[in-house]
């Protein structure tokens, strides 16, 4: 066929012939689309429900949960922003701060170690790396009782560092970044070494720029994980000053009545914590999903 193409017609001229099987699009084509559209509606509907209910009053949410807002209002958002002073704003800022600092630290120390494991030679390298990987199986929950005791002794309960520090050494991140760095050609580093670069300079001037995609992917995954963290902050960050938004949201009660969940406000709160993530996702879709896959293709 390629022979024929070469002899009969000049390349890249004329319309590309439509493959035969695309011409008779049968019912199966539409069935696939229909099935996928049902799935998409299912996956997006809770988002729509959240948005719609955030524009209703608390009482309307109870009476008209599924429907369109009868009288759309921003009252829930206003009530949310003035909830207990400005607790929601404070907690939102706490979450941003904790997630950002943790992400910067986690990416930095994982990248440093990943560089050594991928590109430097030292005694015990493979054994050490294998041992680290094996600990991936151990759930972090086993560390919670000792960590609680340790931080209580230090007087660090209800601080930022107690929420940040246990999250900075990510074996998953180390693994993901190392896999990527293994693909950097040794010649590149060898050349720079002969040019007089120290490993430190190689790290900053070659390895980090080249690894930007994987660093970004890991940073996004880690940030999301921190943003969504619930169990540990619930245990160690109970004071309003350092409480993140995730543990605050479920505790929101009607400012006037008390003991009643104001669903309009809570849905507005859900919008508040979800919109930034969806925005980041839509901007960096590929990084996001490639990060998910990068963790999966091990072994």
């Amino acid at each position: 066929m390629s022979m024929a193409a070469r002899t009969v017609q000049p390349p890249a001229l004329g319309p590309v012939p439509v493959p035969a099987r695309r011409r008779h699009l049968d019912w199966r084509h539409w069935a696939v689309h229909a099935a996928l559209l049902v799935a998409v509606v299912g996956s997006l509907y809770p988002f729509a429900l959240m948005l719609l209910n955030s524009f209703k009053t608390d009482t309307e949410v109870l009476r008209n949960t599924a429907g369109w807002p009868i009288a759309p209002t921003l009252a829930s958002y206003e009530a949310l922003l003035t909830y207990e002073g400005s607790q929601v704003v404070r907690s939102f800022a706490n979450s941003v701060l904790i997630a950002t600092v943790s992400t910067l630290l986690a990416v930095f120390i994982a990248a440093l170690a990943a560089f050594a494991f991928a590109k430097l030679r030292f005694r015990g390298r493979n054994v050490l790396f294998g041992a680290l990987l094996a600990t991936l199986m151990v759930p972090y929950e086993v560390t919670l009782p000792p960590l609680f005791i340790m931080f209580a002794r230090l007087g660090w309960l209800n601080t930022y560092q107690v929420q940040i520090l246990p999250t900075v050494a990510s074996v998953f991140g180390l693994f993901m970044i190392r896999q990527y760095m293994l693909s950097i050609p040794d010649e590149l580093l060898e050349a720079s070494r002969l040019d007089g670069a120290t490993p430190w300079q190689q790290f900053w001037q070659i390895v980090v720029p080249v690894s930007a995609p994987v660093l970004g992917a890991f940073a996004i995954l880690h940030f999301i994980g921190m943003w969504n963290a619930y169990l540990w902050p619930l245990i160690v960050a109970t004071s309003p000053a350092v409480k993140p938004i995730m543990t605050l949201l479920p505790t929101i009660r009607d400012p006037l009545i008390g003991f009643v969940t104001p669903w309009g406000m809570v849905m507005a709160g859900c919008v508040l914590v979800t919109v930034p993530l969806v925005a980041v996702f839509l901007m960096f879709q590929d990084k996001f999903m490639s990060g998910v896959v990068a963790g999966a293709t091990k072994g």
Partner: protein
Amino acid sequence: MRVGPSQSGRTALTPVPLPRTGRGAYDGGEPVARIPVDAATGSGTGTSAMATTTQPTDVVRSRPLAAVRAAPRPRQRALGERLTPYLFIAPFLVSFVVLFLGPALYSLVLSLYRYRGYGAASWVGPANYERLLGYHQFWASWSNTLVYWVAGAAVTLVVAFVLAVLVYHGPIGGKLFYKPAIFLPNVMAAVAAALIFQTLFAPGSGVVNSVLGVDIAWDQDALFGKLAVVALRAWHSIGWFFVIFLAGLTTINPELYDAAKVDGATALQCTRSITLPLMRRTFLFAVVIISITSLRMFAEPNLIFGTGDGLAPAAFQPIMNQLYLNLRAGEFGLASAVAWLIFVPIVVVSAVQFRLLRGDDGGSA
């Protein structure tokens, strides 16, 4: 770090590199200035005692101070150079040991003690484990978790796989829209998802009840309530496994499908005899991941039916609640024991996967 010229042992923390005759390394310009030790010692030649093995010996001899002690044997790597890798891994390793490995091992010890957070810890041996294993709510929590795990895995993995196959073999270009749209729920926080599902599965006039025209007390009924949790988990995680499966599908050589079609195989036959066997590894990986995340589930059941204290009623509590409650009560020994008992099935599942994959050199993904 400045190093005085009199210190012959410039045991250089940074291995000092060789300047090249053709200056201007990879970034062009700025040649000698990037060599800190030389700049500090004012050595114009830019040569160094801490020579790498490629250093010509005559250059070393021209540096009398350095040559005294440091004159390296040609093949011996400098101390600084040997230390460098450890400096790179040190921040990671130190934080890992202090904040993960140490506490993990310590909790194993702690699980054999009774410790209330004050006073002395008293050795109780396996008593914590015995106490948990004889506690009815501990087993009730396990059985709840088992339902979430098995039912959740079945629904999630089957739906995710079907969607992945449809998107992969389906309409050209459909991937651009369907892939992010199906993944999107995974982006939402578990907390927000659970709160939204609470309005979906509200008893009385909740969305599901209204749409189905039924009146199910989701927060009371032990079976239906668990189904609501499974639905929440499935909705939240299908996108993740969908992306994993999609990646697994792309590793299968498309020529296999073409060949099968030539032989007259139907789409279903292709799926059964090409896709399923070749995705073995991916499936096993997915099963391990969904098992681990199911065993560690905490936020979803507690927030979808959370009562005043933010915890689910006994009929819906996952096993992680036992850890949380004991930790809250200051029963650190018991809390540690719970954590290690949760770890047991994780090890079993991982070991089974490992076993199944051994001797499985072929296969994709």
